[in-house]
């Protein structure tokens, strides 16, 4: 967007300060909404923070949600690097969960050390498959990926309901859910800590979190340190340069989207293999969409994605405690905040740039005499 301006502002101003300013703006407007519904924003903030980090279980929940957001946030951001807008994280996550379920139902008897890698593969394959079709259509037929991935979210939802209601449902059960997979599951963090002799409150936080962190490192390496990542970024920034360099745009688009879909598919590891241990209707619960906000907040960098994911995890968990403490505040307040964060951190990304730069110039020795007169 804004060209590589030869300004004298340090890079971290735009990479770190600007998102924080945007976030503050989003929270201020959210505070306004809280005022409108007649509550005290300061009290709300207090409860939010306490509810998200105030006690061990809260931290567990916060990080449990954060795990979801890391997966979907990474999925969206890796696609961004190829200039693809993957709005289909939701559907890919949902179908990825189907992959895990099939593994869980058929191989539930295997020891975790074998089963869990199988689940990872299942999730990745199914998630990638669901991303493959829109990617193929974009690359080969020029169908706008934003539209096709939106459509695929709806289709995924229908497919999964059909399967749950007619195929996967436990015979005799009234619930459209699969049966439980059995004993094998991804261990909870409190269990793992217990093995080490550390006591930690029980929560759904499980070791998928570690896999999420590993994925961050893998994505970071892939994007900036492999030639595949190099090709992907070239296609994303300059398709003409990619053609000149002999890089296949089609291949890059498809591979990137498949990776993106696989990452989104991992959502099921946390939700299904890590916590519910069976396939639930709508277990993807909007996490795919939040991934967009996370990627934007995190500037599509794994470190940023992690931080943004924790922020959103805290919002989700803190929000639950909030509606617990103040019943007049509905749980949807969190969605409002989420929307505002996307507006300020995404669409109005550079709104405060002049102000931030002005502040920096104020504090910095002047290097260029010809500062623009605006």
């Amino acid at each position, binding site marked *: 967007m804004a060209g*590589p301006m030869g300004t004298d502002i340090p890079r971290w101003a735009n990479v770190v300060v600007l998102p924080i300013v945007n976030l503050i703006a989003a929270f201020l407007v959210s505070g306004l909404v809280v005022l409108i519904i007649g509550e005290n924003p300061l009290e709300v903030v207090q409860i939010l923070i306490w509810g998200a980090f105030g006690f061990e279980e809260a931290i567990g929940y916060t990080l449990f949600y954060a795990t979801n957001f890391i997966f979907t946030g990474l999925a969206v951001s890796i696609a961004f690097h190829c200039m693809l807008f993957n709005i289909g994280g939701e559907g890919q996550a949902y179908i990825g969960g189907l992959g895990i379920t099939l593994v869980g139902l058929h191989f539930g008897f295997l020891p975790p050390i074998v089963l869990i890698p199988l689940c990872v593969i299942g999730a990745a394959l199914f998630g990638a498959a669901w991303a493959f079709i829109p990617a193929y259509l974009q690359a080969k037929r020029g169908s706008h990926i934003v539209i096709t991935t939106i459509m695929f979210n709806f289709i995924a939802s229908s497919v999964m309901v059909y399967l749950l209601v007619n195929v996967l449902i436990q015979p005799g059960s009234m619930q459209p859910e699969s049966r439980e997979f059995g004993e094998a599951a991804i261990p909870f963090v409190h269990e793992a800590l217990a093995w080490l002799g550390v006591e930690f409150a029980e929560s759904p936080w499980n070791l998928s979190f570690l896999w999420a962190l590993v994925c961050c490192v893998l994505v970071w*390496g892939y994007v900036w340190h492999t030639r*595949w990542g190099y090709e992907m970024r*070239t296609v994303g*920034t300059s398709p003409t*340069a990619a053609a000149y360099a*002999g890089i296949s745009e089609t291949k890059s688009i498809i591979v990137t989207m498949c990776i993106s879909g696989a990452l989104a598919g991992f959502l099921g590891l946390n939700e299904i293999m890590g916590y519910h241990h069976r396939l639930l209707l709508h277990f993807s619960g909007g996490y795919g969409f939040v991934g967009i906000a996370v990627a934007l907040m995190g500037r599509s960098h794994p470190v940023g994605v992690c931080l943004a994911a924790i922020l959103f995890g805290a919002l989700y968990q803190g929000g639950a405690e909030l509606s617990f403490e103040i019943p007049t505040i509905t749980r949807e307040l969190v969605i409002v905040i989420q929307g505002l964060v996307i507006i300020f951190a995404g669409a109005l990304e550079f709104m405060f740039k002049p102000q931030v730069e002005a502040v920096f110039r104020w504090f910095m020795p002047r290097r260029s005499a010809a500062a*623009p007169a605006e």
Partner: protein
Amino acid sequence: MAPAIKLVGIDKSFGAVHANKDINLNVSAGSVHGIIGENGAGKSTLMSILYGFYKADAGDIFVNGEKLNIHASQDAIDAGIGMVHQHFMLVDTFSVLENIILGAEGGALLRKGVDKAREELNRLEREYELEVDIDALIGDLPVGLQQRVEILKALYRGAQILVLDEPTGVLTPQEADHLFRILNALKDQGKTIILITHKLREIMAITDAVSVMRQGEMVAHRETAKTSTEELAELMVGRKVLLRVEKGEASPAHAVLEVENLTATDKSGVVRVKGVSFNVRAGEIVGIAGVSGNGQSDLLAALSGITKVTGGKILINGKPFVGGPPQGAADVRHMGLAHVPEDRQRMGLVIPFEAWECSILGYHNEDECCRGPVIDRPKVIQESLRKMEAFDVRPQDPNLVTGNFSGGNQQKIVLAREIDRDPDILLVGQPTRGVDIGAIEFIHKRLIEMRDAGKAVLLVSVELDEIMSLSDRILVMFDGHIVGEIPASEANERILGLMMAGINPDDDEEAA
């Protein structure tokens, strides 16, 4: 009489780039006034300020003696200023008529305005030899006609002062002459004309007065009659200019690149190269001249494997090459061909990448860059630094974002990458477009060196001077065909110009 245009103390910066520095300019009414300057001197910026497209940081504008507050283009239009932009401001999907009335529709409903416009346009077309089919879609018209539409647009709005920004860049010398006739006719009607160019020949041919810009400053004003090309060139670049490149005799050997009856299409499937045959031998530079848009770009794209060849044969070192995406551009590199593309910003480089990343573009899969799938960053950076030293890229910083290098240095980064791997054949498109005179000399020297080292070089350029001074043989392209070949020693501007317009010079001579 007050000057038609008077600019006082115009100043303008874009971020760190100081594009116009305290500019003063007087243009007398009823004259043709030239403004010359190298690429990036600030000519377009100045005119855009006059036209209300940019807002000056400081300075005043007087039109016919009256101070004018120009906030938007509408103010300039109201003051009788019309502008033909360097990059045309036309809507491709609209008809000529729609483009012309845009902004001057004559009423909230189109119907009435359209009928009146037809009449008026017919009159203008006849009066100034500006024939064009007003119901044709702009996208279907060749650039020369699009330019006429731009002129019509300005006249339709009643422009008394007409600014033309590098109007001849897209024209053959003959078309340019036609344009100059039109301009003279306009001048005879009492209109004032400002002509921006960096071609000295044109200044001498048509202007009454000329102003020279260099690096954002107005360095001189002259009456055309009282100056010379040499003086203007020196004013333009700030020192004496070497107009010819020193080079020895070529000693061509075997053919490295053989092209037989090649046809190729552009992205939208239009045939742009129509059965072209030629070869390039080791130890010679072959130049391809032509007005831009006659298939040169598509020829380069096909030869370098970027687009698919639809017919004919390409042999590199005697081996057949079947190009086409996605692999073509990579394959052809393995066969010993390197390519300096015409458009360095969109093709040769990835502007937001750091310089070291751009230094392996196209070669990123080679073993020396990678360990397995992982790019060997320290090694690549070091190599990049070495190439920057060898090609005198400034600043010598492989970690700098490519976009922050100046145009000339960007070009050197591309050249360094392509030449460094010692290819058998080098395709070069517009090697010195937008590059300063010092860098031009450097680049030309490297190309001659390559030739003398026994490499084959195919040069495509729209600058006839460059073609004539570098090439050993010259091919001329027109409408997708190669319409002629002459040894450089026999070429001159007139002959090439005629061939570029698709006219056989011999016929022309007979006619004369």
